[in-house]
Structures are given as structure tokens and as C-alpha cells.
């Protein structure tokens, strides 16, 4: 797998990540050079014959090596670092606004209304168009989380009571992964999300689809699932737009079937994993806010999961 990956700072897929990548490369190469120089001098000081190494054994060594050399190198590095900082994460007018709220242990994602496009919410998935800057406004509902998509740039903390902004541009279509980078409790390890960068046209299609209410079940088996969803009280925590389910506590499930993963980036999304998740949340991700619903029969569970999976 090496250095390329869906969650790697060394495989930049956007301008900011690329700028930081080059800063990384330059500092790594320079640092390696300095490291070899220092260890080389140290070994020379130990092992070279006394008459050869005597020039090293004076205060001049400290003044040149320990004082002048670092001052020169750092006087170049510091302004370079500051310039990279100035040019990274710059707010741009006309950027696509997205709001993300970190919650124990998932991500509430909201696309606000933009001109004639309606607003909608989703969860644990960030879809962005290629080439257009995106400004993510982040905060937290409970404890501090941190929003990090390594392929697109640095991280930004999600702090209760504060709204932070991060602007980046995706420049290569593909599927990436973001992750919570600030320890946030029991299941900090299982708090990730998918990031999909699409061509602008595909993005608009996706966006229009997400804004629509949920589709009605096409077959009786799925209708039974919807009934179980209602009777099981799922709607007191979850929204399925277009139905009576309007709970605000958990993730919006209107188009849950269209997402790539479930459980905040944990498992591929299919009927089997959905059923397993519903029945065993506290076993799979102990400490998560959703209780395990272990009392469904296998048949009911399949219907319920099938219904959710059909919500494309």
C-alpha cells in the first residue's frame, strides 16, 4: 500500500495537502541532511585520530555549528513555513458551504441551502465537487472532536461553543477517508467518515437526490421494514424525511442506503451489516449512544435492514 492511500497525508489530492506535502518533503530531506551531518561529526569526534579532530574541539565549533548554522537554516525555514501557512486554508468567496457537527461517535453533516438548491442533512459522509473550494464549518455537540481528511489538508478541532472553518479544494476525484483526530471517549477509534470527490455534474445530481424525501417501499417486504422502523420507535432518534420519523438525536437516515459505509466509517453498507448493526450496536461499538435492538426476529431484522438499504 505504501504511501498512497485513502487516508494519507503523503498522497495529496488537493492544493493545500500538496503544499503541506512539499513542506514535509523539504523538511524531511533537510532534516535528514542535518541529522547525518551531526551524527557524522559526533562519530568523527570520537573515532578520528586526535590530531585530525583537534580543530573540532574548540568553542568555534559551538559558535558555527550550534549557533550560526541553526540561525541561518531556521531564518530561511521560518518565513517559508509562515508563507505556507498564509496560503493554506484560505477562506474563498463562493466556496461550497458545508456544516459538520462532531458527536460521540459520528458526524452530522448539513448542506445549507444555496440559491435554488434546498438544504438537507446526512451523516458520516462528505461529498464534494472536484475543483470548487469547500468551506467546512465545524463544531461539536458534546465533547471536543477533530475533523481530519489527510488527503485534502490539515485538521481542525471541533469545539463546543466555537465554530471553526476549514477551506480546501478537492482536485482529484475519488473516495477518501476522514477521521476524528481528538480523543473523544470510548469509541474515538471508531469515528471515521467517507469522503467522495466527484465531478461537478455528478455532485449536482447527488445533491438533488439527497434533498428529496425518502422513496416509498417498492415491495411489501420493504413496507414491512418501514412498519417495523415505525413500531420499533426508531423515529424518535432518526429522521427519514417524508415519513413520520423525525428524531433529531441520531443520524439522518433519509438516504442511508446511498452511503458507502455505516457505523461512522466502520463497515461496508449492505443488508447484512445493517442488520448486524441494529441487533448488536453495543457489541460492535460499545459505548455508542444507540442501544442494541436484539429482540427482532431474523425475518424482521432482514426486513428492517432491507428497508434501510433501499433508502437510496
Amino acid at each position, binding site marked *: 500500500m505504501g504511501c498512497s492511500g485513502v487516508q494519507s497525508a503523503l498522497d495529496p489530492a488537493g492544493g493545500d495537502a500538496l503544499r503541506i506535502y512539499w513542506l514535509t518533503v523539504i523538511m524531511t530531506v533537510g532534516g535528514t541532511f542535518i541529522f547525518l551531518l551531526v551524527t557524522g561529526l559526533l562519530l568523527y569526534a570520537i573515532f578520528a585520530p586526535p590530531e585530525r579532530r583537534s580543530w573540532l574541539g574548540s568553542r568555534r565549533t559551538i559558535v558555527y555549528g550550534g*549557533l550560526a548554522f541553526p*540561525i541561518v537554516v*531556521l*531564518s530561511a525555514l*521560518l*518565513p517559508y513555513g*509562515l*508563507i505556507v*501557512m*498564509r496560503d493554506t486554508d*484560505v*477562506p474563498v468567496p463562493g466556496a461550497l458551504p458545508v456544516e459538520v457537527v462532531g458527536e460521540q461517535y459520528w458526524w452530522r453533516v448539513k448542506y445549507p441551502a444555496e440559491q435554488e438548491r434546498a438544504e438537507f442533512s446526512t451523516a458520516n459522509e462528505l461529498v464534494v465537487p472536484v475543483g470548487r473550494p469547500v468551506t467546512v464549518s465545524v463544531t461539536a455537540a458534546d465533547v471536543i472532536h477533530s475533523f481530519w481528511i489527510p488527503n485534502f489538508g490539515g485538521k481542525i478541532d471541533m469545539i463546543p461553543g466555537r465554530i471553526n472553518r476549514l477551506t480546501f479544494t478537492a482536485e482529484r476525484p475519488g473516495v477518501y477517508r476522514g477521521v476524528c483526530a481528538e480523543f473523544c471517549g470510548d469509541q474515538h477509534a471508531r469515528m471515521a467518515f467517507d469522503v467522495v470527490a466527484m465531478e461537478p455534474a455528478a455532485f449536482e445530481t447527488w445533491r438533488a437526490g439527497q434533498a428529496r424525501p425518502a422513496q416509498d417501499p417498492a415491495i411489501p417486504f420493504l413496507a414491512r421494514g418501514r412498519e417495523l422502523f415505525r413500531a420499533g420507535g426508531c423515529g424518535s432518534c432518526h429522521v427519514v424525511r417524508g415519513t413520520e420519523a423525525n428524531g433529531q438525536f441520531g443520524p439522518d437516515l433519509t438516504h442511508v442506503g446511498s452511503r458507502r459505509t455505516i457505523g461512522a466509517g466502520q463497515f461496508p453498507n449492505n443488508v447484512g451489516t445493517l442488520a448486524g448493526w441494529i441487533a448488536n450496536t453495543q457489541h460492535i461499538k460499545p459505548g455508542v449512544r444507540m442501544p442494541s435492538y436484539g429482540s427482532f426476529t431474523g425475518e424482521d431484522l432482514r426486513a428492517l435492514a432491507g428497508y434501510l438499504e433501499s433508502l437510496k
Partner: protein
Amino acid sequence: MTGRRTGQVLLMLAGLLAWAVQFTVIYGATSTLCSRQWADTTFLGIGLVQAVVLVTTLAALTATALALTWSLRTYRRLPEQAPPADLFMSQAGALTGGLSLIAIVWQGLPAFILPACA
């Protein structure tokens, strides 16, 4: 500790103290000005934050340069048989001053590269 000794210690640490004051003032001022949207004010054509950093940095540099000169002068004027602790402290004062000048310049640098409150 007598007054003379206190003075010697302060002179020996003058550069670093100047850096500490500069650091506190510029960080405190930036945070305060930005938190209340007072930073938009301009002053002689440059932003208020930049102006504060510039003035503080120049003041810290001047203070350090003076302390450095004074330490060197003290050192040169001390007699050969002066107590070694006195010689040591005036030398250390000069070295501290030199290093502090660099630190103070670096400390002021960001104001001329980055926007004030973004």
C-alpha cells in the same frame, strides 16, 4: 540579595526578559484586538495589530541592544582581579543579548507575512 546584585541579574537576563515582554504584549494584544473586531482599525496605513507588533518589536530590540552594550562595557571595564562571578555575569549578559536579538526578530516576523485575525 543587594540592589547591585539584583541589577546584575536583571542585566544578565535583560534580552530574554525583553523577549518575554514582547511575546506577552503581542500575543495579548492580538487576541484582544481580534476578539472584539478592533483589529480593522488602521494606523498610519498599517493595521492596528501590525502596528502593535512593530512598535513592540522595535522597543524590545532597542532595550536588548542597550543591555548588550552595557554588559560588554561592564565586562571591559572590570579589573583583572574582579570577582569571577561578576566577569561571568557580564559575559553571560552579552551572550544572552545576542541570542535574544534573533529571538525577538523572529518573534516579530509573522506580523509582516500573515493577516491579522484570519
